[in-house]
């Protein structure tokens, strides 16, 4: 048992490294200006081969963890986000074999890498399943949603490439600034991963006591406390004293700790972003833009649309239909308007609107690219904000 768990985590680590190396090889391909897109260069074939090996390695991680725990490893944040990264890679491999566009890999793999890194910030112990989660429908539902989301993420990747390629960087307008904000948000997530890993490696811990619905509750900070829970008191000695309290309206379970993490992500993410800007002396978007000279916008737009077309039915099946079947089996109500469900519905509505907008002229190209970015934001919102913030406020889950 112990052995399996260990194999499993080394496999995950191996796939992480493989994706990283594959990204570099995809990086080399963009320099082949003359090489025809579909007659892929040596770097290109190496890159996709490494990606596939990385994917297989991650599948082994998944299977061995499943064998170790007896449950499909998709039942907590660590497992789910890791799996989502894996689905993104799978979707990328599928789309690569349709369109053979190496550029996609240069963006898709780093995003998968960030997902896996983000996942490892959460507790990695194998969780026991509470009774309501003990159903085959749980993993059928979760894996299908993740696969659907992974495919939809490719539309984001295509949209991002379209925008970085096409948005005019010589002016300061809504478009170039919005694009820069999107890139800045990616830095914030990286900031969160970095600061959590550093203090995680140091086993930093500070415990607070605070009042949760009339009960004194403890919350454990793994980052130095800049902000304390509302009217919370620090009980650990010899650690940094908080600078101020969380505002009163943020008083769900662990609200203080989560707010503290957000503040840290902003500080560290902004710092990294600031250093990058100082070194580069131009916008991140403007820095990447020249690398994308050879991009054919029409093709990228088509990939954007095509991945929504492929991903939408999968997402519907997993996020709405299988979810409803499971909810019916577990609670006798296939729909309950809880925030998680509602946000799955919002995601579905959003992509339905996207598909309808594509029917009319004028919504192809750049507008579609922006929509793909927003769609990605909505899925991430459901993953991060709803899980960690709204669900916490509502004190269930």
């Amino acid at each position, binding site marked *: 048992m112990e052995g399996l768990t260990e194999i499993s985590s080394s496999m995950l680590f191996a796939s992480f490294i493989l994706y990283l190396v594959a990204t570099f090889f995809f990086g080399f391909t963009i320099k082949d200006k003359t090489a025809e897109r579909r007659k892929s260069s040596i770097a290109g074939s190496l890159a996709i081969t490494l990606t596939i090996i990385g994917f297989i390695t991650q599948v082994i991680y998944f299977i061995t963890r499943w064998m170790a725990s007896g449950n499909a490893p998709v039942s907590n944040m660590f497992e789910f986000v890791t799996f989502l990264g894996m689905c993104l890679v799978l979707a990328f491999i599928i789309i690569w074999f349709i369109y053979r566009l190496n550029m996609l890999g240069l963006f898709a793999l780093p995003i998968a890498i960030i997902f896996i890194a983000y996942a490892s910030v959460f507790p990695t112990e194998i969780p*026991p399943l509470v*009774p309501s989660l003990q159903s085959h429908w749980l993993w059928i539902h979760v894996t299908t949603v993740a696969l659907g989301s992974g495919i939809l993420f490719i539309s984001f990747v295509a949209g991002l490439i379209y925008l970085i390629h096409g948005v005019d960087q010589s002016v300061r307008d809504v478009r170039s600034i919005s694009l820069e904000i999107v890139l800045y948000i990616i830095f914030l997530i990286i900031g969160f991963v970095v600061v959590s890993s550093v203090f995680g490696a140091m086993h930093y811990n500070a415990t607070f006591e605070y009042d949760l*619905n009339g*009960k004194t509750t403890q919350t454990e900070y793994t980052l130095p406390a800049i902000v304390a829970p509302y009217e919370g008191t620090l009980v650990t000695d010899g650690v940094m004293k908080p600078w101020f309290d969380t505002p009163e309206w943020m008083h769900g379970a662990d609200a203080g700790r989560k707010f503290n993490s957000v503040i840290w992500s902003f500080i560290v993410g902004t710092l990294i972003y600031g250093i990058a800007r100082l070194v580069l002396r131009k916008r991140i978007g403007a820095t990447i833009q020249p690398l994308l000279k050879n991009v054919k916008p029409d093709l990228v737009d088509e990939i954007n649309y095509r991945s929504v*077309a492929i991903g939408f039915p999968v997402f*519907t099946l997993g996020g709405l239909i299988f979810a409803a079947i499971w909810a019916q089996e577990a609670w*006798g109500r296939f729909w309950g*308007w809880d925030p998680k469900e509602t946000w799955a519905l919002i995601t579905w509505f959003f992509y339905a609107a996207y598909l309808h907008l594509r029917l009319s002229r004028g919504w192809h190209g750049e507008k579609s690219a922006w929509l793909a970015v927003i769609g990605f934001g909505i899925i991430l919102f459901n993953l991060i904000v709803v899980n960690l913030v709204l669900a916490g*406020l509502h004190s269930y889950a």
Partner: protein
Amino acid sequence: MKHIKCECGHVNPEGTVLCEACGKPIEANQYIDGNDKKKLLNMRYEGSARRSTTYNKTIVDKVWNFFSSVKVAVWLIVIALIASGIGTIFPLEQYIPADAISRDPAIFYEETYGIFGKIFYQLGFHKLYSSWWYLILIASIGVSLVICSIDRFVPLYRALKRQKAKRHVTFINRQRLYSSTETVSNEEIQAVKEHLEKSRYRLKEEDNHIVAEKGRFSRWGPYVNHIGLIIILIAALIRTIPFFYMDDYVWVREGELRVVPGTDGEYYIQNHEFILDTYAEDDERFKDAIAKQGMIIPSNFQTNATIYKAGDAEVIGAEENLEKIGDFQISMNQPAKFGGYTLYQQGYQLNEFSKMSFKVYEMNNSEAEALGEFTVDLFDPKSEYELENGFNVEVKEYYPDYSLTENGVTSKTNDSNNPAFIFNLYTPENDNYETSFVGDVIGSAENLGIDTSVVELKPMADVIGTFAATVPGSEDNQYKILIDSIQFDRTSGLSIKKDYTLPLFVLGAIIFMIGVIQGMYWQHRRIWIHPKNNGILLAGHTNKNWFGLKKDIEKAIEGTSINMVEDQKEDE
């Protein structure tokens, strides 16, 4: 109705943009699909005559046109999307937590979330999804779906059925994929035809004009999926009729036999045993996670029960006439199903108090014998208890589910989950009475770090008196009242449902899935070969996946001198 006769001889209905048979643009109607401003033809509906683009006079026309606009549909969808999002900011009415300040929404939102909570409540977002305006919004989406689909389906069907292989030349050269080749031999055309057939295109020929077509059925995908959506909306509507949907809840104590609510007295349930299993702390797989969470994690809730059917409900004493339906082990994700009803394991209460016994002692002499004792049946508490030694205990206040909040002492529910009493003790020798507070066993247990939602207090019931102290009401009390023993019941909470609309939802969902897959994973591709002098014009159209169509054409003309089509797509 004014009909329009095309030069090819086909008679088109009024409002047609492109002749149904040969595709020649009908001059006067080009503005309808915006073809007059573009080089390429708008092929979305094959230039067919739709009601919404043809008539706009009467009020009926106007309503029809409003609902058949995809733009309106997108707006409706976006409004529904935003409203749904706002509804998730704070919990809905039904998700107000049990330990909230108040379960009254009028108080809860403002108290908990301040001014935003108050606005949320006053705008009705606490029951958004059943509010009239949300329902109207969803209904409008339904109406829009129906009208939009009818408006387009019929003309599109006609146009695709009537299309001919022989197309007008302006139709060909205004397609997005187009090429012209000066000289093409018959053999080459033959080779192209064979290639196309190999790629599973269906060919139609007319005077050497060829149309190769594939995947037309995918054009019906959206209409199929919209039918699925409409069925789901209808199912949701029907579900509001009580006959089709019923939802109730029942608490059954161990050993108890109860009628199942909502079944008109037809079914009874007997709870033989309620089981709560938890994960062992030294479980090899999970010990790390359990240690980290530092609490007991349940692995199974289960009610072992027997369901009976009442013999003849009319007869008094139907309970004696019970006919056994079967034994069930009801657990999470394993509901019991019988007679169209489904019973779900929903909640439980391990430590429901059923009886509490108290003993009265002299204040500073705990060694001494008790002076008297009395027992309170919590399902039937009396207002006064007479003790054998002549003492009299008056129940001044009884809180079945005691809780101390900022707003003072309250009882959270009317169930005896955590009883607490204020007793007035009268002694024969004295006219005055003494006041004592006794109770809040759960609170005392939790102060000791016991999680009473998963730990049974029953085994500790003997020593339980030490849990809850008596708080004397006045300083100079001469007597104290201590809890002597407690009887706990284990109660299982089951929800009972009957839902005849499920098959309709399932049907709608299946049809929806078939429709989206049909429309998304297949595409309607057409390739036209139009002879011109010694050569040909080649054109292609697909409703999506142009990349795939180009590959098909590349494959078809391989080994011939025919020019590859160019993408004439204009910048927008």
